[in-house]
């Protein structure tokens, strides 16, 4: 790709368009964990013949779509406790084995939501730090450091307008230098040791993004 693509002739991406972009960036045959919430949408955009196999950290590889009607089985849920289905070639394992798989670096990609991501790839997605908040981490810290690549999907700005791609996270951290890509409605980014690079923008230019974000933004170079 020669330079950052600025799509100024359109508006921001919809959630489904973001999910489709992430699906496109997942190599065929990957083992993938999709976090609770918006990351789950990615499943709808994976080609059936892509060979992508979904992991759910409560103990399964080969997870199928959400279950409906008679297929609902209380013994078969995803990490969000939603009833799901089983594909041919599935397998079940207990929690220690499931997280050994994750922590051991065997998953190719995981997709997570976030409160904040830093240009260096630090992730904050488990705790707002608010005094009355009840902390709950689940498998987020294990996923953050476990998968070979961690993709984050989030809105670029919080409801109060604050940017969520930041120079340094102010929320309690989930993991250090663990995120590799960030997908938002306004732009997609590569993050990491070299800082944040804008891959594509949607309805906004890189220069305007620079004005709205307190983080150094690189353009893609050829």
């Amino acid at each position, binding site marked *: 790709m020669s330079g950052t693509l600025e799509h100024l002739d359109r508006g921001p991406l919809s959630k489904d368009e973001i999910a489709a972009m992430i699906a496109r960036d997942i190599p065929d045959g990957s083992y993938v964990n999709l976090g609770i919430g918006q990351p789950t949408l990615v499943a709808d955009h994976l080609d059936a013949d892509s060979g992508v196999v979904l992991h759910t950290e*409560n*103990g399964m590889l080969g997870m199928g779509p959400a279950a409906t009607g008679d297929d609902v089985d209380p*013994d078969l849920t995803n990490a969000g*406790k939603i009833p799901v289905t089983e594909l041919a070639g599935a397998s079940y394992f207990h929690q220690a084995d499931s997280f050994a798989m994750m922590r051991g670096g065997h998953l190719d990609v995981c997709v997570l939501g976030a409160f904040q991501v830093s240009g260096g790839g630090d992730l904050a997605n488990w705790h707002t730090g608010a005094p009355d908040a009840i902390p709950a981490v689940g498998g*987020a810290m*294990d996923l953050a450091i476990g998968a070979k690549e961690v993709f984050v999907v989030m809105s670029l700005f919080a409801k109060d307008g604050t940017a969520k791609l930041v120079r340094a996270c102010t929320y*309690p951290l989930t993991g*250090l230098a663990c995120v590799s890509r960030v997908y938002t409605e306004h732009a997609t980014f590569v993050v990491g040791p070299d800082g944040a690079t804008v891959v594509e923008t949607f309805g906004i230019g890189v220069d305007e993004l620079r004005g709205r974000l307190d983080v150094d933004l690189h353009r893609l170079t050829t």
Partner: protein
Amino acid sequence: MSTVTIHDDADAAVASVADGATVLVGGFGMAGMPVTLIDALIRQGATDLTVVSNNAGNGDTGLAALLSAGRVRRIVCSFPRQKDSWVFDGLYRDGRIELDVVPQGNLAERMRAAGAGIGAFFSPTGVGTPLAEGKETRTIDGRDYVLEMPIRGDVALIGAHRSDRLGNLVYRRTARNFGPVMATAAATTIVEVREVVPTGALDPESVVTPGIYVDHVLDLSALEGDVA
């Protein structure tokens, strides 16, 4: 000892749980949660408990009912806050329960360590986060790790699909979750199963929890027979 006791009475199955015990409670949400054993534990009356479980109760039944009954002093879990965790949420905001949040993989591995005789282990999970504060860290081969200690239970209450008369267990789908690990980590393991089958009826290749880890089995099919 292979002297597994098969029960058709939930109260007898949990009779030995003592005040102040650390109780490992299986289940991920409601899948695999030993609801009948927990109900019996509420009737049994043991209190001042430390509960180790992935969640802090869902809705008003199972673990949530145990919390609601005021029997739990402290809960060790990965994900207390859920849309149906109102019982825990209320106790926590009122300062009536202690909370120790542990990343889910560390929670599972710390119980595995207890069951496997591992004294402690270095985990990469949580490095640099508030959940690693105060813990020993070490760089090994260029990667940072946190030292994590075993979590042992006095009792484990778990749900499984089937047991034979030696306590060999099979689970079903994602209801397997914490059951096999907790069974290894507790001094006494109490299991509720949908059905007890004759010894020899389970495929030895497919047994997930060998009977060596099981002490008491509650046969829900016998129980339901009593009730009907």
